[in-house]
Every structure is written in structure tokens, then in C-alpha cells.
């Protein structure tokens, strides 16, 4: 098991290198660099004087934007490995000082959504399977199809409009105004939780619907198998048959899906954060990409990739732990 984990971790390194090269190049594919965009912005706002061009040349030198791309890449990735992510042009700060809080909130929302979707999908999937083709199953099926087909950002927007119409408050950010600037306290934590459930639910909805369908399908498969018939023939209670015998087998695919659903949840969290104005990495990444703020956007993509790889690894370990058949292969 340990050698398996080590092998997986080592495999992650070339993957990350590939990701970093591709994202670094793609971010900078459009003509011009960050400073060209900056000049454009300045011009549109207040015109620019002749000095701007000279100043920009000096900034370009300071940011190293006048060096060839591979030199910049080598510098950045070497720094990245040592924890120095470079400087964000737009925020005029070290990338390091910008992203950690936001990553924490991102992980919080992603984990919350995972827990939410599993906590909701499994019981509902079981219920749906054990009540196949009854009206309640049809209802749940209908709801889950609606849930699967609604993009998260749309749900978020609709929720915002609804909350505004109904209560007159915009759902925005992760804190109420009075806590925004306050030091951490229990009250602030409570305030955070009060805001957090909205993105958690919104991001989780798509996944939940899909998982529910999978849970239902698997359980139906398993329920038709001979050992279930045997269990029933033994005279076990129906609840024991379903929960102890059938669900244990039927739940395995859900665990391996855990790893696969991470990308969806992370990108869902990014989009919902942009709509709801949450202080996660989503809005930062979007602006970074639009502005060719290359070290910021590149570092964020790398962090996302690391999260995905670690998440996948954990999911695989969890599956091995839950299913002995995989462990002994």
C-alpha cells in the first residue's frame, strides 16, 4: 500500500510539470502581455502621456517580461518548487500573500460540497432504488434530472435574485459587513457558516443529482443478485438486507467517483464564487487569466492541479480501504 502511494506521488511530478508548461504557454498566447493590457486600461480611463511608454518598458524589465518565455518559465517554476510563486502584476504583491486565505476558503467550499452531495445523494439514492417506479421515485428522478441539467452559476444567480426579491438582502461574500473586518471569534465563525451553506449547496447540487442516479442504479443492480435473495430467504429484516448487504457493495463506485467529481466541484466552486463574490481563488484566477497576470494565474492553476492530484490519490486510498478486493490485487 505504501509503495503504491509513493509511486502515485512520484507520478504526479511529471504530470504537474506538463500542466505548468501548458498553462504557462496558453495564458500568454494572446498577442501582447500584461503591460499592454494595462496601457490599454489606462488609456481608456484617462488617456496616457508619452512617459507611459518609457515607464512601462522599465516595469517590463522589472517583471522580467522582456525575457524569452522559456527563461521566464524556468525562473518561475524553479521559484515555485521552493515556494516563491513570483509577483502578481495587477495586485502588485507577491502571489504568496494573495492566495493562501483564498485557497483555504476554496477547499472549505469544495469539501463542504462533497460532504453535502454525498450526505444527500446516498440516502436519496437508496430510497429511490428501494421504491423503484413508485411516484416518490419518479419525483426524485425528475428532481435529479433538473438538478443535473442546471449549471451551478445559473442556480447561484437565480438564488441571488430570489433571496433579493424575498428578503431584500443580496447574498454576497462570506461574511456580513460587521464581521468582514473583525478578528476571528465564535460569532464570526457562525457568521461564516451562515453564509457558507449557500455556495456549498449550489456547488453540490449538480454532483448530488448525478450521484443519486448512480447510487440508485447500482443498488438496483445489486438488489437483483442471488446473495440478496439468499439474505432475504434467511429471513433477515429488509433494512438489514439493504443497508448491510446491498449498499456496502453498491457504494464502491461512488467512492471511485469521488476522485473524478473533484474537478467538477473545484471549477463549480470557482464559477459560483465569481457570481457570489466569494473570496476564493475563482475570481482571482479569472481576472488573472483575462489580464495575462501570468505568475498569479499559473500558480493558481498549479495549486488546483495539486489539489486534484492529492484528491484523486485520497479517493483511491479510500476505495482500497473500503473494498478489500482492490486492496489485494
Amino acid at each position, binding site marked *: 500500500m505504501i509503495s503504491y502511494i509513493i509511486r502515485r506521488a512520484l507520478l504526479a511530478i511529471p504530470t504537474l510539470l506538463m500542466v505548468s508548461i501548458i498553462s504557462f504557454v496558453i495564458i500568454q498566447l494572446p*498577442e501582447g502581455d500584461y503591460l499592454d493590457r494595462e496601457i490599454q486600461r489606462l488609456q481608456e480611463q484617462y488617456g496616457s*502621456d508619452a*512617459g507611459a511608454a518609457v515607464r512601462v518598458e522599465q*516595469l517590463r524589465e522589472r517583471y522580467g517580461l522582456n525575457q524569452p518565455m522559456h527563461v521566464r518559465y524556468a525562473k518561475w517554476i524553479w521559484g515555485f518548487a521552493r515556494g516563491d510563486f513570483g509577483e502578481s502584476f*495587477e495586485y502588485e504583491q507577491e502571489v504568496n500573500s494573495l492566495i493562501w486565505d483564498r485557497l483555504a476558503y476554496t477547499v472549505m467550499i469544495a469539501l463542504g460540497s462533497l460532504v453535502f452531495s454525498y*450526505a444527500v445523494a446516498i440516502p436519496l439514492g437508496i430510497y429511490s432504488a428501494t421504491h423503484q417506479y413508485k411516484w416518490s421515485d419518479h419525483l426524485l428522478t425528475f428532481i435529479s434530472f433538473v438538478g443535473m441539467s442546471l449549471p451551478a452559476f445559473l442556480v447561484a444567480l437565480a438564488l441571488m435574485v430570489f433571496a433579493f426579491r424575498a428578503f431584500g438582502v443580496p447574498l454576497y461574500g462570506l461574511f456580513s459587513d460587521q464581521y468582514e473586518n473583525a478578528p476571528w471569534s465564535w460569532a464570526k465563525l457562525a457568521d461564516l457558516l451562515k453564509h457558507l451553506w449557500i455556495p456549498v449547496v449550489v456547488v453540490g447540487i449538480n454532483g448530488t443529482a448525478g450521484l443519486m442516479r448512480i447510487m440508485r442504479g447500482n443498488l438496483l443492480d445489486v438488489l437483483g443478485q442471488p446473495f440478496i435473495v439468499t439474505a432475504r430467504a434467511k429471513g433477515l429484516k429488509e433494512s438489514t438486507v439493504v443497508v448491510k448487504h446491498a449498499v456496502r457493495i453498491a457504494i464502491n463506485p461512488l467512492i471511485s467517483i469521488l476522485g473524478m467529481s473533484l474537478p467538477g466541484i473545484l471549477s463549480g466552486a470557482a464559477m459560483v464564487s465569481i*457570481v457570489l*463574490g466569494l473570496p476564493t481563488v475563482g475570481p482571482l484566477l479569472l481576472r488573472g487569466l483575462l489580464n495575462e497576470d501570468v505568475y498569479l494565474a499559473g500558480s493558481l492553476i498549479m495549486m488546483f492541479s495539486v489539489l486534484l492530484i492529492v484528491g484523486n490519490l485520497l479517493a483511491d486510498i479510500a476505495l482500497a480501504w473500503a473494498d478489500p478486493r482492490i486492496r489485494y490485487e
Partner: protein
Amino acid sequence: MHRRWPRVLIAISPVVAIVALLIALAGPGGERVEDLSAWPSGLEANEAPMLAKRVAEGRLPPLSQRLPERPLVARHDYAGYEGPGRYGGTWRRFDTSPQIASWKMVGGYAPLIRWRFDCQGLEPGLAESWEYKDDGTALTLHLRKGLKWSDGHPYTSADFAFFYELCLRNEAQLIPPVWCLVGGKPMAVETPDETTIVMKFAGPNWLVPLWLATGFWENEKYNIPKHYMVQFHPRYNPAVTAGDFTEFSRKNLPHQNPDRPTMWPWRLKECRDGGYYVLLERNPYYYVVDDLHRQLPYIDRVVSKLIPDQQVQVLKMLAGEIDCQYRGIQVMDLALFLKGTRSGRYRIKMWESTNGAEPGILVNWSAPDPVLRGLIRDRRFRRALALGIDREKGNQIAWRGMCTPQGSTISEESWHFAGEEGRRLFEEWKSAFAEYNLDKANTLLDEMGLTRRDAEGYRLRRDGERLTLVMDVTDASGNRMENDMGLIIAEGWRRMGIDAIIYTPPGAERSLRITLGKYTISMHSQAEMDLFTYPDWVFPAMAKYWHPKVGRWYETGGTEGDPPTPGDPLDRLLKIYDRIKKEKELAKRHELVHQAVRIHIDEGPFVLGTVARSPAPVLVGRGFHNVPDKGILGPWAPAGPGSSYPEQCWMDPEARQ
């Protein structure tokens, strides 16, 4: 059967449990607020309670020692001024960039000399007075005595000298500003005493006061707190690596470094998450007072959040969570906002963008294709193009009828057109070739000999190729109105037998194509108050807009770009601009602008007009006072709304959060 419902409940119980737990966890509570009830905040108070308390506790010198000898008295000769206000409150607003640029337009205006709010001239700022030597080669500024930075350290001529020294030595990305150069030679700065700055130029240089008054970015450059910044400067602090200005540049950012003293009405207190949360607090040493000699600003704090998503901005404003917002409302959402005023949470004051073309259609004088270049330099061709623009349709479709169709101009409110003669000239400029008349357009094209057509009915150029114009259009996600306008214009031109092809390069590339002169037709929204400092819409003085190549030639002193042909309109315009820079009399300078506009009417249009003058709505929250009813929120250079002294705004106690 009777057990079915409970089972459903059991199945969804985890959801209910999680949600209920989260909601239950939420409890009351909040930040502790300083108790200031012992200090008056009404008209009897000369300073804010929070400062009075600190004075009483001995943590701050008394007001008389904090104000300059003769403080600047804020002007309020505008409709909408309600009177001196109470101290206190927090002004909530939002921004769209981490540089809080739109806030600096409001509360970042602390120049030596100020633009008047009506944009018709200048008035004193940090400098009490200024005078030129008769030949225009020297400008002397007299600072107010006793000005102080927000940390209490005196603001003196040494600060300006420090800034200029940085420029001359080319340190921290600073170079001598364009306005101090005469014939490429930078000025010399002398500071005979603490309150006198003397600038000596290599020749007559009459426009400097205008430059000093421009926007927030000029005064942000020259207002450098020497006493604080020297600790990061390698020549002053041996601990700093020689030649390394990284830390210096970073510490010099007024929107990021709360420790850096400022002359702003509100100083930066906190900047978190890379600018997503910005807190500003009153500057206890602010040098501006009201009529009753009470220190400004009235409002204690400003909270500015970075909200990138437009829909969220809209929601926050509709919900009354924004106390006052300039430049925040998209014109297309106006109906929604007006409807929202029924809630009583806010009012809308209609300011003017004063834009002269939204967008102006740029026709590249030095288009890359030689045949097209020849056509474009024939004024009949440009006139035909202008006549082929259905402005009324553009107004109705792209702008929902909120603009006025007209030829392309700079801002109507510009001081160049204030007089009777100026008005007449402007009217003529704005109506020149502003009609939609395909017959006339076709006649002009036929006259030029573009009569041969191909099988599809498009006109053929002299070299036998189809007459094709590639038009760079803003992409719809960047600016929907400009995109719509592009489509409408292309339609008109096709009906004239010109094959108009729409091209939507991504943002930066579009502007690069303009600057480098690679485009044939492009677009840019057009507005300007003062052509002396920002001449480019009328005079080809920089690599921009309709004249990138000639502008490049002019701004580089002839080393790059294309020179104008002697005697052609561009050459004449540049000669006029050279004369403006050397002209002492303001009235004569305006007259020279009139001559230039005359060239635009007779030889133009160089930029094709579409529609103009979109409204610029300002949102004013309930209980928020002293916001002018009318104003100009278009071009940034004349510094509106900062020039209206927004530090005079105040809030009802019950409106405060």
C-alpha cells in the same frame, strides 16, 4: 402505505439537519464601536468626534496645529449642495479594480492646483497661488504654510524636489514628466524655502498648471512623502541594496501601503486580500475646511470592496448596501435602477458623460494597405463613410435611444467652446456629415471613380480588387453597445458597395493594433475636456486613435513613425499645437483650438461620429447629502467628481450602518 411519508423525511433528514445546524449556529454579535457620545458631531463641532477624543486624550495635537495657516475652503457653488454636515458615518462603495482607481477619482484628488468642478478653469489646491515669469520660462508655486501629511509631518517643497530628483535620476520607474520637457530638455526645480517651488523651463511652457491639476494620477506621482520614503531609498538608507527600488516602488503605492502618509481626505487604513477589502479613515491633518471653518471630511470612514461581477454590483446597489457610487451604473441597467428608486433606498442623479462619440469610428490615416491609404486620405471617401452610418438606428438599437446622434467631437462642455463663437463652431463641428444619406455617399464614391462593381455588386478598387474594409470591433462581452454599433455601420457600408468585414480581436490586441497603426478601421469612445493637455483627438500628437504613425513621429521627435506630408491637414494641426504650447494668452490658445477644429470640419471627418452624450447616473443612498445634482463623469483628466470636494458629503446618523 401510511409509512411512506416518514421514510421520505428520513431520507432527506441529513440535508435538513445540516442546513438547520448551520442556521442555528448563526448568532447575533458585531464589532465593538468606539463610544464617542461625549463629543459633539453637529454644527457646533469643528472637528470629528473621533479626533476630538484623541485630542482630549493627548494623542493628537489640537485642530489649530493640524490645519495650515490658511486652509483651503471647499467650494460648493453647485445645485444639490444642502449645507454643512454632521461628522461621522461609514461610506460604503465598491470598486472594479484592485488599484481602486474609481475611488481615487473621488477621494484621491490632492493636487497643487485644482481643476474647477465646472471644468472652466483652475483654482488653488495645495498651492495657494502661482505665477509665471513673463516669458513663460519659469513657474513659481507658493504652498500653503503649515500643510501636513496624514502622519503630521510637514508637507513642504522638499517633497516635490524629492520627487523630481527621482525623475531626473530615473529611479523607481520615474522619469521627468512630459509637461516639464521643452524641446526634450527637462526643467530645473529650485526650492528657495519650505513653501516655494520654482520650476525653470528651457523655453516658454504655459500648460504646466493644467498638468499639475490633471486627474489623480499626476498628483499621485508628485506627492511623495520624502520623510517616510527615504528609508526605502538606497541613496538615503545604506541598508538598502544599491540600485534596488523594488521595495521603494511597493511602499510607494498609496492604495496598498497603509503606513505611507498621504494628502488625501481619507487615508488608507487597511487593504486586505489584494484590494478586495479596502478601509479608509479620515486624515486628521486634512487641509480643507468648510465655510464655518470646520475640518473636512465629514464622513469618518470609507469601505470599498472589489466586486468584479457586474450583476452583483447591481444587486448591492439595488439593495441599498451602497451609500454613494460614481461611475458604477451601466447605462443599459438604468431602467432597472430607476424602478428601484421606488424602494426609497437610494436616488439617482443624472450626470453627463459628455462623450462626443460612443464610439468614434477611427479611420487610420496611415492604413497598412497602400490603395486603401490613398482612398482614406481623400476626404470624399471619409465623408462617404460618415454618411453611411445610420446613427438613429444605432441609437435606438445599441443605446435604447439614450444618446444623441451626431458627428464626432470632444466634450461639448469643454472650456474651448465656452464663448459665443466657440458654441457656434461646436454646433457646426457636431453636425458636419452627421446625416445618414446613402445617395450622397454613393455620389461621393462615384465621383472618386469607384464606379466599377463586381458580380456581387461590391465596388472595385483601381487595382481591380474588391473594395474591402476590415473593421476592428469591440467584442460583445467587452462592450455590447460598441459591438452592436459596429454591425449597424457595416450594414450601411455594404449597401454602399463596400465590403465591410467585422473583426473582433481580443481586448489588448485591438488596442495594440491601434497603437501600432496596423488597423484600417477601428473604434474608441471619444471624450475630452482639455485639448491643451490631452490633444490627441484633435491633434495627431501621439501614437493613438486615427493617427498612430504620424503621432509616433511627433512624440518621438521624428525618430520613428511616418512624418506628415508638408501642408497636409496633419502637418497643419501639429503646427497649431506647437503654437498652443508657446502661447501665453489663454484666449488665444482657445482660438488656436478653434482653428484646428476648423481644419477638422473642412478636411475631415477624421473620426466618424455615431452617437454621443450617454447619461452617467450617480447613485446616492438614503440620508447621503451634498452630492451635486449635475456634473461631468466622462473624461477622467478634469478629475470629476474629485474636483467637487466629495469630502463635503455627509450622512444622516440614522442612515449609518
